[in-house]
């Protein structure tokens, strides 16, 4: 599903060049659950952003589902991203001004799905995440765990093949973190490919394999 070869990302300011990623090779097959670990500043999030088509690489190639998207423009990247990739963030990133239902519905709106299909999908995923009783609530009325469940619901509502999670348990206590990880495992078992950036060894334990990054290089890959 994901074939990345010799991927390099350089951040340039006027006189400093920083290599966030340096010739990274990563292959992810459909249905895999991969964890990416490494200390702060090692390039984990940059990698995830590039995989999520939120950012372009400086060098190297990236094939997503067989399509070369190495140097696509923002417009085309948006097109591919829509419906194919779901995102989960450490700080949830829900829209404060929209209620739970509307937040989850958001990706479907941009897919131009008709209203009855949207309702069906959102209701399904709400039940699944056990937040059906909270549809009219606004994010600030929910606990962190609940907010992250809404965010996960949003990331899967469009049935994307790939879910990218950036430290999904980082802002949660261990009990809620456990719930979130269980949910992700279930999604993976149902066929979703998951790429997760994490600091937590325990969370990484849920993945099939772990990629360790340091200073922009892949240093080890371990399978569990």
């Amino acid at each position, binding site marked *: 599903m994901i074939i990345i070869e010799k991927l390099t990302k350089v951040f340039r300011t006027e006189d400093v060049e920083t290599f966030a990623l340096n010739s990274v090779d990563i292959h992810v097959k459909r249905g895999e659950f991969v964890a990416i670990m490494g200390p702060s500043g090692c390039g984990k*999030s940059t990698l995830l*952003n590039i995989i*999520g088509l*939120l*950012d372009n690489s400086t060098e190297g190639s990236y094939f997503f589902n067989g399509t070369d998207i190495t140097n696509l423009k*923002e*417009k085309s990247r*948006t*097109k591919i*991203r*829509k*419906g194919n990739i779901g*995102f989960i*963030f450490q700080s949830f*990133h*829900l*829209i*404060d*001004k*929209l209620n739970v239902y*509307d937040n989850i*519905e*958001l*990706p479907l*709106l*941009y*897919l*131009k799905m008709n209203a009855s299909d949207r309702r069906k999908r959102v209701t399904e995923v709400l039940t699944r995440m056990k937040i059906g009783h909270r549809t009219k609530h606004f994010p600030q009325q929910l606990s962190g765990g609940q907010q992250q469940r809404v965010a996960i619901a*949003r990331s899967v509502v469009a049935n994307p093949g790939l879910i990218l999670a950036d430290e999904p348990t980082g802002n949660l206590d261990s009990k809620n973190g456990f719930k979130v990880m269980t949910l992700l495992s279930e999604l993976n078992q149902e066929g979703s490919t998951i790429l997760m950036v994490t600091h937590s060894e325990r969370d990484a334990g849920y993945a099939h394999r772990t990629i360790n990054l340091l200073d922009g290089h892949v240093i080890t890959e371990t399978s569990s």
Partner: protein
Amino acid sequence: MIKNYFKIAFANLISNKVYSVISISSLSIGLAVCILLFLYVSRERSYDRYHEKADNIYRLCQEEHPYQAPGAAKLLTDNLPEIKNYARILPRDNILVQLDNQRYKENFVAWTDAELFQIFSFEFKDGNPGNSLQQPGTAVLNEKTARKYFGDENAIGKTFKVGGEYDYTVVGVIKDIPQNSHFTFDLFLTLADGDKMFSEGWMENWGWNNFLVYFEIQDQFSKSDLEVKISELLKNFNNADGIMEQFTLQNLKDIHLYSSHFLGDIQPQNSITYVLIFSAIALLILLIATFNYVNLLTANATTRVTEIGIRKTFGASKSQLAIQFIFESMLVFIISFCISLILLRFSIPLFNELSEKSLSLAILSNYKILSSLLGMILLASIIAGWYPAFVLSSYNPVKIMKSSQSGIGSGFQIKKILVGAQFTIVIILISSAIVMSRQINFLQDKELGFEKEAVLTAIFDFGDEAKFNTLKQALLEQSFVSNVSTASRIPSGDLGNQGTVVPEGQEEPILIPYVHVNFDYFRTLGIKPIEGRLFTNEIQTDAIESVILNKAAVALFGLTGDPIGQTLKCNWPKSTRKIVGIIDDIHFESLYTKTKPVVFVIHYPLAYHIIVKVNTPDLIKAKNSITEVCQSIYSDEIIEFSFLDTILEQRYQKDYNTFQLMGFFAALAIFLASMGLLGMVSFILIGKTKEIGIRKVNGATVSEIMKMLNVSFVKWMAISFVIATPIAYYSMNKWLESFAYKTALNWWVFVLAGIISIVIVLLTVSGLTYRAALRNPVESLKYE
């Protein structure tokens, strides 16, 4: 999707109350003013356009006035094939109309040709345009007058008496002439028997320049060629003395707005200058309101970057985001539009009172006007939404989600430029308002050269001189009456009547305004001679052989040596007269025009105004007693006295109202700009909370922080001032040019305007900064 946009838009409006209140209220006010002035401008531009032949109707004008001799119209129509038809109007006021048992004084009477109703499209209620005023003694009334005279009865065939002796029969009733017409007469009387009416030979009198002449001209013609031909043709007729004047043709649609150069017109008209000024103000106010909105939207957008990032991450394209923001902008504009309609509902009556117009929102039911207005508003909303939409939608989602949302540097520069632009407008408006109010005060305080207080005047038919002298004696017997006289013109009126004078030793006749007066005219008005003497009862020959000039006339005639005792050959009445006195150049006409040379001669038949000077504090009682005395001698007349100072005030009233309106709109613009500034500063402070905290931790005092924030605004104000001053100077200079007597355009006016706006800025910025600077630094740092 639209529902989602609605939700987020409303949620944003509600959660950001300061922002919403400022944007929506300033947009509502801005739109209300804009719509109001739009109504006003379209009203002013609509004058006379309802006539079907408006494009082909032209008025014959001379350089300073639109009045012609009665014979000019026929002569030109007979000789120039371009002219298809003509109609003359002789406008008259103070006309006595008698019915069996009622008497009225009519002020909007026109003696006119039957063709008037073929050229102009007046709507007939009874009778028809093809069959009106052809016959001698026929009249057409408007509906209002017909009802006044005859109630609900059919007016056709009814008769009434004009001026106490001439019978007229009603042959037609027209709908009241719409207010957006350059003339609105109540009575039209035929000119078919003009000779009978105005005494033998007058209709052939080429010096009787009292008629308005309207031509219907064929579709294709060269205006300038025709004007030359007209001037040529009239050269030999217009003045027996052979003075050539330049004639011009004025299209009907231009009369209302392009006649301000005339010294007098059939009815007071507006000037295109004021229409332009009002349009400019409307545009500026809308600009300020829109800038407020754009500024606050972009400022507020910093709090929305997360939403934008999320939307982008989940598949929103740039254009979808842009559409969302433009949609929100439209929504805000539409809400503001609705509020502005409510504001208008209450402000239109007020505006009508001040501007003496009858504007109404009903005009919006005209789909053309409504759609152009809505189109304008939507366009404004798209333009307003465009910039924020463009800026916000192009943010990279990665950066947005990462950064703590303060990195919107380029936007900030634009916002400052917009605030700067607003204050440029404000400085222009403040300095213009100061200049205008100084000019008004200048006009109000100007010494006119005569006493306007406690002078009463009226117009009625005095009969023969003996009868008038009886009245004069009766009035002078009243203890409070100090002087009584009559005149063809009183100060406050126009010097329309011109005659010629040939000074001693010269041969060329000189055209000059005549004022026909009676003994005691100057004493009644408190005018003293600067040389020689005034007319006096003791020298009765003054009536036939003396003349008084003003200083300007002496200069015009080029008299050398002592003017007193020199003789002038006058043509109105034809006589040779000796100069007995010189008076100063009093402000006979309005202060918009320079004082003119005038000759004053005693000539009872033309002196139809009575002037009474009283010396009592109880002016109302004096007015009543004077009216009673007059009425006892002239029992058939309707006698209404007015005070000279009131007439003068009324003359300037329209302008005072215009200035007042402008002052009001300028104040509104300043208020809107300050509100925008308030919103801007509060957003900037939110962004600077951290900086303020860090500075305070490192030892900055409250006043140092206030200084820091103020300095950046004052810098922009200085730039605004530099841009605004020349614009304001230029436009005010231009405006003052329209006045013959004007206040000086002092440099300090602009400095004052600059200081006022800087004070507004400093107060706003300091007020808000003070609160922010006082906060405990720990709080502001935690906030981040």
